[in-house]
């Protein structure tokens, strides 16, 4: 793919609206098309091309450059291969972090009852900031949902 991920999403949404919805009369089916558009809009702000393909391309490039370097009088890049963290691993770490925050909440309701109130309040403050940060970040990366369109099958 030579087009950007975001432009491709925009193109798909525009095609569904202009070329598919204008020819579709069934109300439920139209609602589902709006559901597809809604999902595509989310991809646009949260997803991108898979890094795996690029990593393979980079590795192939580097292998060639490393082989050529001693043969030519040029300064060729010798970059170490990037090591990205797989998304699944990041999700696991997020959930583990949330479980740790939950254990703090349980502690507040149990053993902390006898603890210093200032310390309790400080822990509670940090906890609330962390919980809010998670949802605030999610909201910042969410498009406007198309509930009106999905429920009515009609363009708003």
């Amino acid at each position, binding site marked *: 793919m030579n087009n950007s991920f975001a432009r491709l999403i925009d193109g798909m949404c525009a095609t569904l609206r202009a070329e598919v919805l204008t020819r579709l009369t069934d109300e*439920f089916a139209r609602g589902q098309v709006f559901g597809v558009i809604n*999902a595509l809009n*989310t991809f646009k702000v949260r997803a991108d091309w898979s890094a795996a393909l690029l990593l393979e391309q980079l590795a192939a490039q580097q292998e060639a450059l490393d082989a050529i370097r001693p043969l030519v009088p040029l300064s060729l890049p010798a970059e170490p291969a990037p090591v990205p963290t797989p998304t699944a691993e990041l999700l696991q770490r997020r959930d583990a972090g*949330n479980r740790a925050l939950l254990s703090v*909440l349980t502690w507040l309701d149990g053993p902390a009852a006898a603890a210093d109130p200032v310390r309790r309040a400080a822990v509670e403050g940090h906890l609330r900031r*962390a919980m809010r940060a998670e949802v605030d970040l999610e909201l910042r990366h*969410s498009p406007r*949902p198309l509930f009106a369109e999905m429920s009515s099958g009609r363009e708003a």
Partner: protein
Amino acid sequence: MNPLGDDRALAARIEQYLTTQAGRPVTVGPIRRFPVGFSWLTFAVPISGLEGEETRELILRLGPADGLFAPYSATPQVQAMRTFAPSDVPVPRAYWHSDDPAILGAPFLFCEKAEGHAIVPWVPASEPPLEEGYRKRVGTQFIDALAALHRLDWRDQPIAAMATTATTADGTITPENAAHHAVQAYKRLIDRWAMRPYPLAEWGIRWLEQHCPVAPRVTVVHGDYRTGNFLEHDGRISAILDWELVHLGDPHEDLAWVSMPMYKGGSPYLCRLCEPEWFYERWAAQSGIAVNMASVRYYQVFSLLKLAATHMAAARCFEEGRFNDLRMPAMGSQVATCLRQMDKLIESA
């Protein structure tokens, strides 16, 4: 073979069932599914041969085994519709129902197709506000029907079957345990549905458990009373719909649900219909129950937790491949919105 997902096969099953029930040949035309509703499936069913009438349409509601709140029973909805049939609460007439999935593939109920259209809660910013006279007319009925629902003495009615529960200490819903019972019900649902830990949801449950109000009395609670769940015809509310969350509890639960920000449709009015002061004053006068605004605020927090839980269920159902309705992941993406609003309410309480 389960006929769900195959409209022709479903129509054939309906024909067979209604022929048996009516004791005469009944024919069923092409059935039509509505895009409304996120839980039960709703169909318009054209039927000929019932009591010698011309073709008429009935509504069929089916609670699929893979639905949001499954496993379903049609009984509570039918109990509610039969309870309110002779009251000031407009309800569609309930006909046949069964929880036996062998008949139509899922628990189901048939009811009258009331005339009218639904005023949708979700409207774009470009949508003009409801015409003032119309808004007041429909708003008045909207309040009065809710007050009539809460006014009803349910103890001698079919719905009284819901009064006993295995999850409260003495087995019954009381003014003292109504809030706790409601919170525990959704705590269990979040445990069942959440696909990952949500500390903010736990924070909300903790706050709700620590601040349970006493109900002014135990009433019927619709559970999903809002625009989108009633029909309007020529300026009259013709039917209150979607009784699947009906239960007994604190009437403030319905008042709070009506006031959810997502149902205002960009207007300053509750459910696009009522000024808040007018809504609470008229409801109190009509129901004979004083409004306790602290209880309303409590149940607003609860309502946002309940919405978040429902959205968690939608995400899970889609993730597990139980169905491919693309409205479900869209709902699932709204968990953060609900939890953030809930947290703000807790902070200001």
